[in-house]
């Protein structure tokens, strides 16, 4: 686990940016599918409690939401990392930003996955 974390930190910038562009493209496609699914009923209905819970109970859709969560977290936190690296420079600051964005990304994915899992299992 520690070794994997180290490998992520030491990843070449070109690989990180390939992931960045890839997650952006993936998120655009899946969010478009998500929006199209919402359009099968009117907006008010789609936000009703039963309809929202039904999304999580439908396994393929819940999996898609999980993938969207991962794509957006990876893309978003890497984007934030890049902005922060451009804002200020310095070895310890850059380390803090790199580690911080990975930890924040992991926390968001864990918390979002927990929501998807609990709603899917009917625990609220």
């Amino acid at each position, binding site marked *: 686990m520690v070794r994997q974390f180290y490998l992520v930190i030491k990843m*070449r*910038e070109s690989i990180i*940016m*390939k992931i960045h562009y890839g997650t952006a493209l993936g998120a655009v496609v899946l969010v478009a599918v998500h929006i199209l699914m919402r359009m099968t009923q009117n907006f008010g209905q789609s936000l009703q409690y039963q309809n929202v819970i039904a999304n999580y109970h439908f396994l393929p859709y819940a999996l898609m939401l999980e993938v969207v969560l991962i794509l957006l977290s990876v893309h978003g936190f890497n984007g934030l990392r890049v902005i922060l690296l*451009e804002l200020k420079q310095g070895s310890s600051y*850059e380390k803090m930003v790199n580690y911080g964005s990975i930890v924040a990304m992991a926390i968001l994915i864990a918390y979002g996955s927990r929501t998807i899992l609990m709603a899917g299992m009917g625990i609220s």
Partner: protein
Amino acid sequence: MAVVTEPKSSDELITIEKTSDQLNTITLRIARSNPSEGHETTYSEFKVPVKKWTTVLEAILYVKQNLDHAVAVRYSCRQASCGSCGMKINGKPSLACYTKVSELHSNVITVEPMNNFPIIRDLAVDFKQLISNHKKMKPFIIREDSEVTPESKEFSQTPKDLEKFLQFSYCIKCGLCNSACPTMATDTSFIGPQGLAQAYRYVADNRDKGKEDRLKIVDDSHGIWRCHFAGSCSHVCPKGVDPAMAIQLLRGYLLGFQK
């Protein structure tokens, strides 16, 4: 703010030709600062006689010769070859020797040191980082064999091969592109358009074998990926080099679109 007027006698006109009967007078505002002594930037105004072909550098040298000897400015060739006299002229990074006063369409011309460089004094800036980044890119042909031995032939290169990098070899290291770069304004560790364009110049050269080395150098957290493609570097280049395009082409190598 020091205000100095033009000399009364035409004999004092050294730089600007005396024979013209069409001398106009412009106000030249020169940014003055000396950070090593903690002086903040002030502007000195000078009345300078100019003709339609007078360059901004000539106007500055007129001031140095006739009105204020203490103005600090770096210059050398006066023909846009050495890249020494880069400065902000009416807000735009330009070469002073390559910018005519008449093309600015203003009677007031403000000259300031380039952005994104530490100021030494007045208009002279420190090129240490630019030169160091340029050197980091290994700006020379890397390969095991040599074309200068008696047995060897010169490395062949077709006109098509040459076209791939020719415009990037016109770089005179004047630093205008780095001065105009918005990323360099916040990211002091950024390699900059000059260095990246030079990296591409050698990567695209078919005689060179150092592509992998150079791609590793630019593939850094403050390297090629921090370019926002604003394009201002290409806009200000006095030699017609397009660093923004070089950066995109170099990215192609890193993303695997180019071999």
